[in-house]
């Protein structure tokens, strides 16, 4: 039986929404293809009673099996994945489950590990993939729309892919799934030795009139604002690129997959308020 695996990232003990969206589409693909769907989670702590809620959420999200990979050396929950700590778990998945499809939500962490996962087992790699079932079976693309690139293969070889936020809907299944727990051990090749706020972030162009309200939001995103741009500078699009969302009138034709109807100042004010409430 073929295996499809979704690598699930957590935030505050819960699966990221994008992970559940990928899991949902993987559920639909698995049902059609007759594959077994695994939700794989890398955990720093050994599973305990509190893991039951996570397992139930992943089962409701469509997983046939939940694979809890326990590694004390893995990155703290919420920290972005890096290969030195997540790599052994990912290699374990590929070496033991040999998934025909190995899917990640398109997060910063996935950007760090997904391509290497593809290289590890010689897979094809698709960034921001579209995974569609039709009469002819499964078709895989990188991207969407007219600029997409199609992978002409009928899963004759394994494929590793990331999937953008908002691309698919989560599934709604019952909360029944088998659970496997595996202990893995990362090496200590790369050591995190500290952190600092700010740094040299990327730059967001912004009309000067929006600087005051945009600054807190941009800071939280690790970006600076460039007020030197002309007044029509596309702060909406710039922020959208950072957040991987599309906004209002700019949603049409955008690569990103979320949209909000509203203007920049409303969005930034809400973000600033949300961030300020946490500071």
């Amino acid at each position: 039986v073929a295996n499809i695996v979704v690598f699930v990232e957590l935030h505050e003990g819960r699966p990221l929404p994008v992970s559940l969206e990928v899991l949902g589409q993987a559920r639909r693909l698995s049902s059609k293809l007759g594959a077994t769907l695994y939700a794989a989670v890398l955990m720093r702590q050994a599973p305990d009673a509190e893991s039951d809620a996570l397992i139930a959420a992943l089962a409701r999200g469509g997983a046939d099996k939940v694979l809890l990979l326990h590694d004390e050396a893995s990155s703290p929950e919420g920290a972005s994945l890096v290969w030195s700590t997540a790599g052994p778990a990912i290699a374990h998945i590929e070496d033991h489950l040999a998934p025909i499809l190995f899917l990640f939500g398109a997060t910063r962490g996935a950007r760090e590990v997904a391509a290497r996962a593809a290289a590890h087992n010689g897979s094809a790699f698709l960034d921001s993939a579209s995974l569609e079932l039709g009469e002819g079976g499964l078709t895989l693309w990188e991207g969407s729309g007219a600029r997409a690139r199609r992978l002409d293969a009928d899963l004759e070889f394994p494929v590793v892919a990331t999937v953008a936020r908002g691309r698919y809907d989560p599934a709604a299944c019952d909360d029944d799934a088998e659970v496997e727990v595996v202990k893995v051990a990362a090496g200590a090749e790369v050591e995190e030795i500290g952190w600092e706020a700010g740094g040299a972030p990327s730059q967001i162009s912004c009309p000067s009139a929006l600087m005051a309200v945009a600054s807190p939001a941009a800071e939280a995103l690790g970006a600076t604002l460039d007020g030197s741009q002309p007044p029509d500078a596309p702060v909406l699009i710039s922020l959208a690129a950072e957040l991987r969302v599309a906004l209002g009138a700019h949603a049409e034709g955008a690569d990103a997959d979320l949209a909000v109807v509203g203007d920049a100042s409303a969005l930034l004010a809400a973000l600033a308020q949300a961030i300020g409430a946490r500071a």
Partner: protein
Amino acid sequence: VTPRVFALVDGPGDLDVVRHAVALGDTTVVTAAEGPLAEAVLADALALGARAAVRVWDEVLARADFLGVAQALAATVRQHMGEPSPAAPAPTETAAPGATATPTAAVIVIAGDRGRAAVGPAVAERLSLPHLGQVMRISLRDGRVVVRRRAGGIVHLFAARPPILLCTVGSPTDAPPAPAASAPAAIQSLTLADVGLSATELSHRRRFRPQPGAAPEARPRVVPSIETLVARLDDEGLLRPKGAR
């Protein structure tokens, strides 16, 4: 130990990779790109201070996927890892016959973190090196590579002993000035056979490379309210208080 640095470049957009590399030490620039553009990029890299430039090429690479290209780059780096640094003094006449300079163990490979950001990690996999992406700054401290990489509003500091592969974003803030003009080093052109590969080994990777072909349009999903969007971003862990981990 003076690090031996390799910069992997694919086009003009990777010259910042060279700037990161030459700030660390003797740099060999490697590309698996085609034609005059590749030659121009390597020439620019030499002008930025790289000591040597190597181009490996075969027509099969034009159709290969990320991993085919990574295999060619990795084989080229591997072949040059054990060679003396291009900046090392030539063996003297008194050296024992057949003696060569001692290879440095401190190899740092630097690639760009642009676009799909797939080739760099794949080269690391082929060379069995640890790798880190989204690297903004690189420094050397007590024989270790210390890097700064940004995730959200936080800069994380990582340290590792070489060898390591780093995928960089942006320009280094402390890049050395371009060296005074001097006779440029020659660009070394290699075939796949020169680095121990064959076109046959890589030709199957063309099947793994996606080809242009329209896909269904991803319809933007409308979030009904600002509050919903903020909640969603919060659930994704994208909203963090300033200064928090």
